């Protein structure tokens, strides 16, 4: 059984009474331990798909199974709990709380998981140490470089031991060197067994994954081979 499975997933947004379709009949399976890269032009619906996979949004139609469970029947609280326990998010813009220290940021998901304070702080510290940020526990986001911020964000994504790491253009705001460092961390995490789904524009970054799909105009391009991907690469 795949870790996650989308069947004929459609998504449209309501825009002033008009329904604007964004995703069409998405079929997708991701196995446990995979490192999937989603590519595609801007506005093609990658983030929308990622939000559905991450249970931040629900499909307009179609089915989504996560870890064998249907998402469609779940209420808001169950989705929140699922995000907390099963999914780790990494965003292009880091999305750290500016008024909290690195350690407090990382500890946040554990608060929602009901972990007691002392253990939260300890686990947050360990997660940061693993990302090479053990000497920056009390730093605030604005005291950190882009690469460091993203490490904090990854530590936060990983702190509650999720099954899936979702990364939406994680290197998009970073310089090349920091970007590659982040990718090395991802590879490391993937080797330890976590499933990664990553959106990226950059072919060099995409090469870190072990499977690539291409989305265009809200559709997964069937049989997206190395050629179509490289065509996509050429078109950029």
């Amino acid at each position, binding site marked *: 059984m795949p870790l996650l499975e989308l069947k004929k997933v459609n998504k449209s947004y309501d825009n002033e009474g008009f329904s604007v379709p964004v995703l069409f009949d998405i079929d997708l399976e991701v196995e446990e331990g995979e490192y999937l890269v989603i590519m595609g032009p801007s506005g093609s619906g990658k983030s929308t798909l990622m*939000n559905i996979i*991450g249970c*931040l*949004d629900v499909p307009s139609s179609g089915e989504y199974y996560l870890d064998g469970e249907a998402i469609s029947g779940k209420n*808001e*609280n169950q989705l*929140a*709990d699922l*995000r*907390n*326990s099963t999914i780790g*998010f990494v*965003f292009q813009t880091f*999305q*750290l*709380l500016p*008024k909290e220290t690195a350690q407090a940021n990382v500890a*946040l*998901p554990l*608060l*929602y*998981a009901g972990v007691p*304070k002392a253990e939260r702080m300890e686990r947050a510290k360990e997660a940061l140490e693993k990302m090479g940020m053990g000497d920056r526990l009390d730093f605030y986001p604005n005291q950190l470089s882009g690469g460091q911020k993203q490490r904090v964000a990854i530590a*936060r994504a990983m702190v*509650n031991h999720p099954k899936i790491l979702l990364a939406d253009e994680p290197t998009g705001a970073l310089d090349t060197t920091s970007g590659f460092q982040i990718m090395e961390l991802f590879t490391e995490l993937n080797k330890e067994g976590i499933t990664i789904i990553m959106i990226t524009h950059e072919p060099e970054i995409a090469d870190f994954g072990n499977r690539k799909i291409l989305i265009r105009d809200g559709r997964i391009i069937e049989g997206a081979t190395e050629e179509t991907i490289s065509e996509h690469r050429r078109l950029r």
Partner: protein
Amino acid sequence: MTEDLKLSFKGIWSHRLRSFLTMLGIIVGVAAVIAVVSTISGTNEQIKNNLIGDGTNTVTIQVYQNGWAMDFSYGSVPEGIPEFDESILEEIRKVDHVVNASLIHRRDYVDLYYLNNELSGSMVYGIDANYLETAGYQIISGRGFSENELNGQKKIVLIDETIKESAFDGVDPLGKTLEIQGEPFVVIGIVDKKSEFEPVIKNVQDYYTYMGDTRGAVYIPDHMWPLVFRYDEPKTLIVKATSTDDMAGVGKKSEDILNQYLHVPEGTENAPKYQSNNLAQAASELQQLSSSTNILLIGIASISLLVGGIGVMNIMLVSVTERTREIGIKKALGARKSRIRRQFLMEAVILSGIGGILGVVAGIILAKIISVVAMIPTAINVPSIIIAVVFSMVIGIIFGMVPSIKASNLNPIDALGYE
């Protein structure tokens, strides 16, 4: 819960200026209410004390008929009123909050003569051993009545300052003879109110004085009363209560005790009855007045706190908008709706609660300033403080509701995209 509390305090502290501005409406509202309540209750307290005798706390219980205190200068003495003696005082003294009691006779508007000076309309008291103490008087020169004199046949009299001033005109009155109803009485002492306190009005006589009546009073042993006046005149009871607040109750209970002994035929309309004096009644009317002003003030408080509450809501809504991204992040990381709602609600309650407390402090300071600058007495009213703080927290809950629900309903995707 404590975790959320800490988070809320942190949220409030990290937006200090905005938090303060949010509280301002509540602070001003509560401060105004506390200051006004303090001023009004201070003034009420003063009026009450002045009117019914701060410290003296004496209640006069006399025979009333048709709503008027009976005057025995003319007309007949009603049937059925026994001649009370020392034993009834024993009974009265057993009543709670009674300090002392005294039985007297009293006549208003008696003409007195010293040589050729006529003093019309003076008051004459026939007093027992307890009277001066009970009514808060003391001998300031000469001496008082001895035990023997109180029960004897000596025609001796005590006079007050007013009589001394107006009848004796600079002459030392001690040893002089004063004519009461044609009977000569020798002045042996001068009495005055005890000067522990200086309110404007301390007792009934002061009340008359205050009303423009400057009649003096003289005191003779009650034993001598039948000699000058009538032997069967009903007596008047003077009771000293522990505190001003006990006066009405003590008056009522004393009335009841005295009235038990009346032999008034059943069903007699307008039968004479013992009744405590109007000053105690006036006090309770004043208390009612002050409680009705309190109701009015609670109304004013509600309105000003309502305005403060709308201020809280307004700024909380701005705060929710400003913190949209924070809310999005928290939701993405697994925060449930209820937790977001609780965070904002708690912030609103803490904000308005702190606002309420600061308002109380500001109000107390304001009240002190008023009492110093405007020379108006103020009394800090504890219930009003508690009500103000609780009420402002309730306002926080009510007006924090809308912003916190708005916050918890934010769509995490929109919130994350929000810059």
